[in-house]
């Protein structure tokens, strides 16, 4: 233990004796972090340039450019080629070429020309431009849809206005039908049956004939009457009877004619009744059908009313599904999101570079051989280098965390401290391993840079690797990715280490492998002394 402390003290003495190395060791990684912090300490992006070409500038593209000018420095060019060449020459990041008839109803395709070699920037800018253009398109659509909605609303009012009329017609038709039906019913109830025999004209005639015959008989019998008075009287009566019978015959003849006439008239009425009934039935049927149609019309009106009565806004029609990205953290600035990344970057850069520089400095030191023949175990030297690097690294991280706490109130939990310790250990041992494997400072630096580049490549820093199938598989095992994920989860999502078992096991696995490799590399490096 005393040896370990002595070696650590010696390492610090050596580090601080050389001012240049002190600056590099202490301030280098912090300067990187500071610069990155400043670069990302905003939700906006600055200094993005946009080249624009449009044969004609109208209110539509001027309006769009006006909006874009808030985020981009816009340069109007004289030709589309000049605009595209500007992208090639990096005069601006993206070129927008409007069609000659750029209007809502015309050709409204805007061409974006981007430089694919600047992939990350291109993604950011095209996303921003697309967002702005979409916003403008949305506004235009909203206006158009609002006009349509106004017209639909006018139709709705008109329909609502006509609806009572239809109801009234229906009501009136209903009344008319009732009247017709009643008339039909009453008319049908009329009894127009007529029978001549009911007047018993023939029986009356027969009885009159019988009376006449009887009268004749009486008169004939009277002729034998001995009583002249009575005979005369009977004769007179007989004459009167004959006169009355004759009158009666005439009346009966008239009655018979009248009956016949009545019969004929009733026959005509009956025929009229039949034809009227048929007409009434037909009218009733027509009215029924009309009512049904009106019912159908009413249904339609009701449905139309319901359809147009949907209280929907133009914004809903233009953008029926709204996406609102709600972060699961309250962080607003890029620094907040980038902060875990910065911490891990610091740990990775610091751990690998400090570790490898410390070891290679020791190996190329004039005292190296003496160290190898000292009665001190080799692992003590490895641990001394580890502790020295860790102390420097943890001081740097503490400063960064302290500054972060002051400005962003990022909490530093004990679990975060533990994670930082674990991650730093892995990267420091990678650095030590690189140092022991290397024969020269140049080799150590190249190896460190290569490793850091490899870790960065297989992460999301350079490429959106999580979207690339095969690389994604590899990226999962990248210690930098693992470290970034656990620190992100810890800081931004407040996930405790007990839920990060998988990541921690992977980190521990890395540590075990690298620790053994470091010891082997250290043993191997001795033979070069």
């Amino acid at each position, binding site marked *: 233990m*005393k040896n370990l402390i002595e070696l650590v003290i010696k390492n610090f003495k*050596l580090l601080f004796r050389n001012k240049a190395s002190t600056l590099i060791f202490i301030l280098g990684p912090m300067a990187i972090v500071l610069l990155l912090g400043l670069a990302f300490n905003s939700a906006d992006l600055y200094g993005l340039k946009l080249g624009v070409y449009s044969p004609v500038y109208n209110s539509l593209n001027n309006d769009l450019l006006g909006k874009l000018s808030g985020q981009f420095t816009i340069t109007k060019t004289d030709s589309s080629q000049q605009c595209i060449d500007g992208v090639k020459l990096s005069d601006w990041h993206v070129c927008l070429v409007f069609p000659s008839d750029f209007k809502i109803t015309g050709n409204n395709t805007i061409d974006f020309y981007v430089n694919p070699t600047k992939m990350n920037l291109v993604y950011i800018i095209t996303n921003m431009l697309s967002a702005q253009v979409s916003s403008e398109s949305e506004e235009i659509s909203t206006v158009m849809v609002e006009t349509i909605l106004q017209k639909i609303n006018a139709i709705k009012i008109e329909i609502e206005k006509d609806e009572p009329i239809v109801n009234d017609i229906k009501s009136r038709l209903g009344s008319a039908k009732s009247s017709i039906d009643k008339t039909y019913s009453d008319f049908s109830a009329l009894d127009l049956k007529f029978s001549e025999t009911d007047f018993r004209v023939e029986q009356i005639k027969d009885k009159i004939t019988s009376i006449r015959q009887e009268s004749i008989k009486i008169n004939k019998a009277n002729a034998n009457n001995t009583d002249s008075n009575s005979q005369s009287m009977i004769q007179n009566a007989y004459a009167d009877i004959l006169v009355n019978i004759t009158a009666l015959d005439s009346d009966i003849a008239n009655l018979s004619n009248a009956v016949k006439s009545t019969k004929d008239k009733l026959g005509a009425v009956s025929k009229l009744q039949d034809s009227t009934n048929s007409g009434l039935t037909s009218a009733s049927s027509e009215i029924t059908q009309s009512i049904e149609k009106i019912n159908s019309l009413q249904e339609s009106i009701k449905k139309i009313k319901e359809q147009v009565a949907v209280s929907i806004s133009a914004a809903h029609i233009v953008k029926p599904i709204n996406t609102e990205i709600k972060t699961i953290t309250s962080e607003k600035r890029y620094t907040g999101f980038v902060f875990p990344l910065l911490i891990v970057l610091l740990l990775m850069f610091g751990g690998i570079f400090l570790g490898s520089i410390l070891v290679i400095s020791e190996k190329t030191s004039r005292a190296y051989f*003496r160290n190898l023949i*000292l*009665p001190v175990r080799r692992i003590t030297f490895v641990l001394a280098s580890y502790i020295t690097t860790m102390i420097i690294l943890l001081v740097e991280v503490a400063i960064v965390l302290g500054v972060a706490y002051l400005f962003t109130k990022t909490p530093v939990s004990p679990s975060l401290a533990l994670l930082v310790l674990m991650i730093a250990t892995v990267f420091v041992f990678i650095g030590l391993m690189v140092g022991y494997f290397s024969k020269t400072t140049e080799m150590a630096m190249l190896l460190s840079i290569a490793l850091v580049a490899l870790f960065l490549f297989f992460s999301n820093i350079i490429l959106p690797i999580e979207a690339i199938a095969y690389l994604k598989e590899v990226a999962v095992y990248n210690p930098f990715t693992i470290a970034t994920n656990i620190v992100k989860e810890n800081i931004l999502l407040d996930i405790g280490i007990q839920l990060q078992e998988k990541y921690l096991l992977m980190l521990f696995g890395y540590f075990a492998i690298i620790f053994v490799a470091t010891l082997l590399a250290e043993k191997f490096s001795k033979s070069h002394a």
Partner: protein
Amino acid sequence: MGAEEKREILLKVENLNKNFGRKSILNSLNFEVNKGEIFGIIGTSGSGKTILLKTLINFHRPNSGKITFNETNQKNLGFRKFFGFSTQESCFYPELTTLENLHHFGKLYGIKGKLRKERIKELLNLLELEECTNMPASQLSGGMQKRLDIACSMIHKPKLLLLDEPTVELDPLLRHSVMRLIEDINKKEGITIIIASHLLGGIETLCNSIVILHKGEILESGSLDKLREAYSGDEELLLRTDGDQKKVLQFLDKRKKMLGITRIADHGNKCLTIYAKDSEKVAHYLLPVLRHLKEKIIELKLSKPSLTEIFTSVISKKKRGADKK
């Protein structure tokens, strides 16, 4: 040097082999290092000196052979307290001060506070580093850096100090100073020292025993005298007189065979160099003759073969042998 009487073996190497892949670096090495002596391993660059030193401390594991240290298990971590190692390039933290470096390595060797302070004081005194205790090591001169490196290697009072090319890249004055320092350390601290170097100047006067290493093989080993015995070259005798040297030359010509003279070089300014197997024997015979001839001796210089000459001879002999094969 003071350990000559005792001859207690501190380190014994038997049939040591070390390969890197298929390349043989050390090949069947055998030697012993006595306690308290300064042991030199000399060889050309790439002969395997540094690897031999690192193999001795078990930094490189030998492929075969045996290295035995006195009462110490080489595989224990505690073994590292047994030796100190100073490499060719100074091995400390240039950014730290002299004092900080010593405290740092002292702590890592497990030396407690007060003892450590005392030890550092001793070393600063011994290695004459007191004036630069608070100077960053990078600002020390080359010689001082070497001293600091040796101090760091000795902070824990090792029984064995291995110095790999301790004088390389130092100017002659500093080289001499470091050699004197090594001698002091050996004498004052009683530490056994193994020096590996391809710079032979000073080693011959410093080391009790030397091995000549060439392409991973020991060509010769032993004390300097023993090496000289194995030396196949001539010794030199330089003679400068003020008179006519013709008679001297005649005398020597007649007795060339008897005196073992291989060659006489007349430099023309009354100066001769006589090459013989035994220059002392030549001088022994020549001095009465010169007195008889009444030649006034201005300069008479006997020179034994230097370690460089022995080394060159041994290597050349090896190369000739290899060429013959």
